């Protein structure tokens, strides 16, 4: 008897828990969707407000220049080191994989194309996520939890205009310059590495590079740079303004922001070839 009752309970519980779990999963999915929509809406609003302030000429020029110096000049050493290493590694690995059936000068094309189309923009963006994006989020988050953002509001200053807009504009203007430098450094480093490891001289390297070169590659690289230069400070600012809850909140928010920025760069990067390389 008691066994029967027990079985009945288990069976009922099992039947009830399945729809329960399903509805719980649906609720979680709905919340995720709601949160995603909220992020998208707030990002769009932040971008719109930045454009409006820019068009009205209300973004402090001095702040834009300060941010450009900080994002550009001060990021340069790290960007150059990253580009150097990426060019060297691409050249060495390309040379290693080539057999006698493929002329070695093709290495010039492989290195140049890889650096300009992919490595230059993406690795520069990854460097900037850590150096620029994380700092923006942490800075705005700290300002938020210490009521400095509220203080700006109380003083009649719009935080988007005085804090976010200069950084977003500086990102759009600075990242293309950094990517152009990264492209050049990467190609140069690849050329040197090709000579050192595969015995491919500069002339043959550039012969190979020219053979499969399209001028569109530069436009493509710059388009990526502008997109990443917009995405990083935009997401970083948005995430910074959303931070709540003291030092722990700032730490958590910054980590989430870095994750979102990295994901965004990789997704945008994946969208570029089907859209612009056909």
């Amino acid at each position: 008897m008691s066994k029967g009752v027990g079985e009945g309970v288990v069976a009922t519980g099992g039947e009830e828990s399945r729809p329960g779990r399903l509805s719980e999963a649906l609720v979680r999915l709905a919340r995720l969707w709601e949160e995603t929509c909220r992020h998208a809406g707030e990002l769009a609003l932040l971008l719109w407000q930045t454009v409006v302030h820019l068009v009205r000429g209300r973004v402090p020029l001095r702040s834009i220049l300060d941010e450009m110096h900080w994002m550009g000049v001060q990021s340069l050493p790290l960007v150059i080191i990253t580009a150097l290493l990426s060019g060297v590694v691409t050249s060495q690995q390309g040379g290693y994989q080539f057999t006698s059936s493929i002329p070695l000068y093709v290495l010039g094309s492989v290195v140049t194309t890889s650096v300009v189309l992919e490595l230059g923009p993406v690795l520069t963006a990854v460097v900037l996520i850590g150096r620029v994006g994380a700092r923006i989020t942490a800075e705005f988050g700290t300002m938020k939890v210490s009521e400095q953002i509220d203080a700006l509001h109380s003083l009649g200053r719009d935080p988007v205009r005085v804090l976010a807009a200069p950084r977003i504009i500086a990102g759009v203007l600075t990242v293309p310059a950094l990517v152009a430098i990264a492209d050049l450094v990467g190609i140069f480093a690849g050329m040197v590495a090709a000579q050192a490891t595969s015995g491919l001289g500069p002339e043959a390297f550039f012969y190979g590079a020219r053979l499969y070169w399209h001028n569109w590659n530069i436009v493509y690289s710059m388009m990526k740079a502008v997109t990443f230069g917009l995405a990083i400070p935009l997401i970083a600012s948005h995430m910074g303004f959303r931070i709540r809850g003291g030092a722990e909140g700032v730490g958590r928010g910054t980590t989430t922001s870095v994750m979102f920025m990295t994901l965004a760069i990789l997704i945008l990067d994946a969208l570029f070839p089907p859209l612009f390389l056909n």
Partner: protein
Amino acid sequence: MSSMVEYRGVYKAFDAPVLAGVELEVRRGETLAVIGPSGTGKSVLLKTTIGLITPDRGDVLVAGESVVFGGAAALQRVRRKVGYVFQNAALFDSMTVFENVSQGIAEEELRRIGRRELLDRVASALEHVNLDPGAVLGKLPAELSGGMRKRVGLARAIIGRPEILLYDEPVTGLDPVNSAVVHRMIARLASELDVTSILVTHDIDGALGISDRVALLDSGRIQFVGTPTELRQSELPLARAFLDRDQVGEDLSAIMGTAGSVPTAV
């Protein structure tokens, strides 16, 4: 005496209701202290005054303008009339004292006035709060003591010549001597600048010493409004608990036991 700030049925909930229909009128030129247990929404109420927090229901009128329904332009006008002193001063970390205090001046005015006038006004605001401009102008907030930071925050609030000053826990974290200094300063500024002051505080002695009226906020509503003398004579248990220091622990326990749950802290 006409009213300067009116809270009309202000309701605000976060996870739980914090303000549950606050009705309060602050008269022109008076100093009103808002007291109450921690987590009862005193700071939330203060923030609704200049739209830093928007009420879920109700309205706040400042000098006749609706903060909630007046739109962005009205809110901007209201903010120009108000100086807000934040709990931890909320000075901008990357700016010097001079730059911080300058931010208290409206941007259009800041563009209009010359460097000399700006320097004079910043120096004058700092002198008003008993700070030596020569000693602090070039310093960063991190180089100042807690009391000095509060006074710089106060200088930033008054430099724009506000009609209303809002103080959010102005003496929190200060020793009794510095607390007394800040309280005297609040009283002096109220008379010298002829401003309406709203003061949110836990320091009952200080609040009673400088305010014209006291409002007691608890369970999301104003439970008592009156002069300090009326508060002292009040038989309201919460008022007694606040006034009678020796009994404060027991009385608060008794009140919480009889009055039910205290709203969640924000």
